[in-house]
């Protein structure tokens, strides 16, 4: 059996044109596409990210802090030893002032312009489109916030965030503010040892926009998306690349010679299947690693992340090998191997399309996206993207089992379809 595998690998290696198109070309395409596409993307970014925000402060912070100091002194909830600490913390970074400082900080100043004004002015300017969004810090905000956090009194106060249009940049500001509030809460909480802080309590008011981005995730940029989707697509092609050699072997009569040696028929199939697996595996890892080395696609990612990538890739390559296996069996059955190659190529293009390898899945209608996940490449791409974002091990098992099951069925069917030893056509 190994003889067949060596033969198939050697044949592949000798065909330099094939080596280049299959191994090098995908990497070149990923790099070129990423560089050209991210250029366009970045231009859009700098244009769109210029966001003007009108801020309305109705809260009287200094008065609230004085009141808060008094309440803390009388409070029985806070240990006497900690009281000084809590007050010092709040005085050092009063909530509203901190937020304003944050919004005007150098990191944000590039894309957020903050204008302070009265509520009616703000509402009007947003309506007219002079400003993209408005943020209202309501009266009593500081007071409510502090007593809620430290004294466990009242409810969590809400900031009012609203925008005329729902746009990506508005969402981003929204997220940024929320992130800041979360952090602020955490810092206050630290100042009271034993003070229990529930981070989820920090919520932005209704009327703004819905939170889009997931917390604690890596978002996927364009070159990362290309690397994953092109990697998956090109590996998919490997199935027909290797299987189509069967047609060549029939045409050049080497297959007849093999038949005459009375070798168990499955050795031939085994060679093709294993060769596909090995080549596909090398190919996808080369694309991932190459893209990482050239574009820094996966920089700052953990070892676990890479292990997961290798694992998902391996399972996918297994599925591709299964596809190659069944294609090999079918082309041995068919009188006309060229026709078989055409059919296989079409199937792969179809899989590639609905699996989202040519165009991002999210531009497709929902039902098609769902079907897409029934293709091995679509499922793999979805899993890879999920793994990329969350590195959540539990997302890997089900798809992997599905892919392995799919492969085993393919291999089983191809063994049944494969002409048996001694069978004469």
């Amino acid at each position, binding site marked *: 059996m190994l*003889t*067949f595998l060596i*033969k198939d690998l*050697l*044949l592949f290696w*000798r*065909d330099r044109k094939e080596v280049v198109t299959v191994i090098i070309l995908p990497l070149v395409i990923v790099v070129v596409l990423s560089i050209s596409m991210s250029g366009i993307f970045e231009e859009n970014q700098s244009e769109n990210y210029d966001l003007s925000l009108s801020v309305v402060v109705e809260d009287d912070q200094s008065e609230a802090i004085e009141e808060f100091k008094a309440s803390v002194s009388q409070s029985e909830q806070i240990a006497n030893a900690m009281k000084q600490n809590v007050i010092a913390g709040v005085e050092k970074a009063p909530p509203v002032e901190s937020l304003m400082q944050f919004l005007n900080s150098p990191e944000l100043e590039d894309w957020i312009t903050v204008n302070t004004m009265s509520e009616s002015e703000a509402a009007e300017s947003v309506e007219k489109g002079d400003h993209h969004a408005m943020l209202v810090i309501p009266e009593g905000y500081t007071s409510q916030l502090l007593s809620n956090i430290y004294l466990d009194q009242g409810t969590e106060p809400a900031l009012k965030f609203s925008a005329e249009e729902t746009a990506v940049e508005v969402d981003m500001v929204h997220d940024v503010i929320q992130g800041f509030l979360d952090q602020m809460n955490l810092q206050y909480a630290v100042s009271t040892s034993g003070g229990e802080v529930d981070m989820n309590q920090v919520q932005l008011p209704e009327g703004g926009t819905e939170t889009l981005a997931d917390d604690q995730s890596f978002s996927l940029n364009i070159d990362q998306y290309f690397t994953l989707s092109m990697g998956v697509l090109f590996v998919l092609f490997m199935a027909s690349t290797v299987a189509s050699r069967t047609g060549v072997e029939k045409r*050049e*009569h*080497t297959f*007849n*010679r*093999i*038949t*005459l*040696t*009375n*070798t168990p028929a499955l*050795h031939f199939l085994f060679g093709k299947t294993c060769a596909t697996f090995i080549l596909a595996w090398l190919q996808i890892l080369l694309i991932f690693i190459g893209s990482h080395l050239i574009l820094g696609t996966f920089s700052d990612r953990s070892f676990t992340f890479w292990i997961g990538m290798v694992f998902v890739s391996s399972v996918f390559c297994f599925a591709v090998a299964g596809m190659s296996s069944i294609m090999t069996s079918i082309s041995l059955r068919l009188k006309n191997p060229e026709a078989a190659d055409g059919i296989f190529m079409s199937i792969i293009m179809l899989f590639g399309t609905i699996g989202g390898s040519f165009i991002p899945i999210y531009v497709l209608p929902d039902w098609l996206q769902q079907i897409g996940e029934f293709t091995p490449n679509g499922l793999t791409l979805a899993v890879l993207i999920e793994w990329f974002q969350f590195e959540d091990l539990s997302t890997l098992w089900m798809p992997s089992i599905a892919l392995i099951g799919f492969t085993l069925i393919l291999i089983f069917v191809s063994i049944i379809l494969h002409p048996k*030893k*001694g069978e*004469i*056509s």
Partner: protein
Amino acid sequence: MIETIQLSKRFKEKTVVEGVDLYLDKGESVGLLGPNGAGKSTTISIISSLLKPTTGDVKLDGESVIKNPGDIRKVLGVVPQEIALYQELTAYENLKFFGRIYRVPKSQLESRIQTTLELVGLKDRQKDLIKTFSGGMKRRINIASALLHHPKILILDEPTVGIDPQSRNYILEMIRKLNEQEGTTVLYTSHYMEEVEQLCDRVYIMDHGKVIASGSQSELLSILSNEDTMKVQLNQMSNELVKAILEIDVVRHVEETGDSIKIIAKKSSNIISNLVKLADQQNIKIMNFQMENPSLEDVFLHLTGRTLRD
């Protein structure tokens, strides 16, 4: 050893092999002679278990090959008409691959590859890719690939097409050696009668899917025993004359070859005088007249009225 019984093969409506009975005894060298499209390759494919006959059977030592092709494959070496080699592999790699899957013992494989390469005279080119070889060299490796497992029966399908006379003689000599020294049974297919004359003990002549004659060379030639073949050289060629000669009732065939004509006719006393008379009438001079020994080519001509390479 091998015997075919009323082999027939039909592709769709077309019958390409029809009622072929032939046999091969151990150690024999048998020729299968026929023009293009006679059905030689199809017959060979059926015998070597690559193709199922529409009707009929192939037997190896009395056992049907169709039902159990494994037996014949074990003892068979087949040199196909096409170059059945991996073009992208070297000669050595091809031999190694086929040797392995022929289950040549590992310990012997290397030495067998080298002796076989030596036999076909390509030892020094073994590291080169097949696709860089000339037609003749490819043919030789094509033969070598069928010899590695030391087959008892060797079937060669036109192994010398398209190669230079030197390589051709080399190959023929090699096959003769295998047959005479190793006792390999040989079935040799060709449409070159000289090759078959040189190599084979017995000959089958096929045409249009049927065996039209068979036997040893002398047996086949004896078909012509009551015919004469003569070559007449003329000072000028004349279609009138050719027509007139054909009118003579004992003449079976007339063929123009350059400035002379070849005539096959029943043995008879008056053919020469007739010829001279006819030539005289048309003012044509007979420059040379020669009786020829018949060849298998003439036998084919006699049987079909066509030459082998028509």
